[in-house]
């Protein structure tokens, strides 16, 4: 099982999964990736939804830590937060290695000779 720290981490990862579960939000993020950063107005030019909707999606992505932003005059420019994605990849790796350890223990027990089970 995860340690307390990892439980906290997984909660944060959930926000990422939830953010990416919405197809339009995924497209917003892809658009940012393709453009190498963009304002809400620029994203709205590429996608069939209003700028207002884009702003909402960017808000969710921001709370999930998937984008970073900075002010640029009157605009806000958003970029993909690549480290965050690597973070999620590492989280999945950790779950995989937990299974690896559990199955290794199962194997060790199963292969013990003279075990009555």
């Amino acid at each position, binding site marked *: 099982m995860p340690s307390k720290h990892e439980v906290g981490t*997984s909660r944060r990862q959930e926000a990422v*999964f*939830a953010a990416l579960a919405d197809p339009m939000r995924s497209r917003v993020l892809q658009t940012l990736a393709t453009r190498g950063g963009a304002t809400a107005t620029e994203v709205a030019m590429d996608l069939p939804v209003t700028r207002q909707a884009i702003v909402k999606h960017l808000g969710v992505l921001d709370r999930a830590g998937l984008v970073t932003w900075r002010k640029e005059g009157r605009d806000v420019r958003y970029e993909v937060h690549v480290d965050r994605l690597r973070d999620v990849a590492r989280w999945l790796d950790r779950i995989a290695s937990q299974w690896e350890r559990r199955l290794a223990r199962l194997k060790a027990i*199963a292969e013990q000779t003279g075990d009555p*089970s």
Partner: protein
Amino acid sequence: MTDTITHEITIHALIERVWDLLTQPEHIARWYAFDGADIDLRPGGRLAFRWREHGEYRGRVERVEKPHTLSFRFVGHVPDQDPNLHNSTLVTFTLRERGGSTIVRVDESGFAGLIDPTEGTANKSAISLEGWRGGFEALAAYAVQA
């Protein structure tokens, strides 16, 4: 990067023995749920794994095909919660016999379905695994080249 984690191992023991270790509470406590396990081994049956320092983690049995398949929904990240589609993943054990040995494969899937409880009422109809996958794969590719 996909929504499924898979791991496979070859165990030099008969499939019936591995099945018992995988499904009997007293054995599960030896390799996984160190402070005890309950498992009602039939579809819809309750499952609980305990670790003294973390609490009780619950699940619900989906498929039981002795000695080849056991699958269950599992709330692996929050204690004391009954499983539903938005707080649990699907864990599937598949056992195959090969010349006196047993190949055990575990798949854990459904991370994309996990909903952040802090986000309130997410628009569930808009949530699609395909959307998540597409987005994630594109971004994983982006992360690699960046």
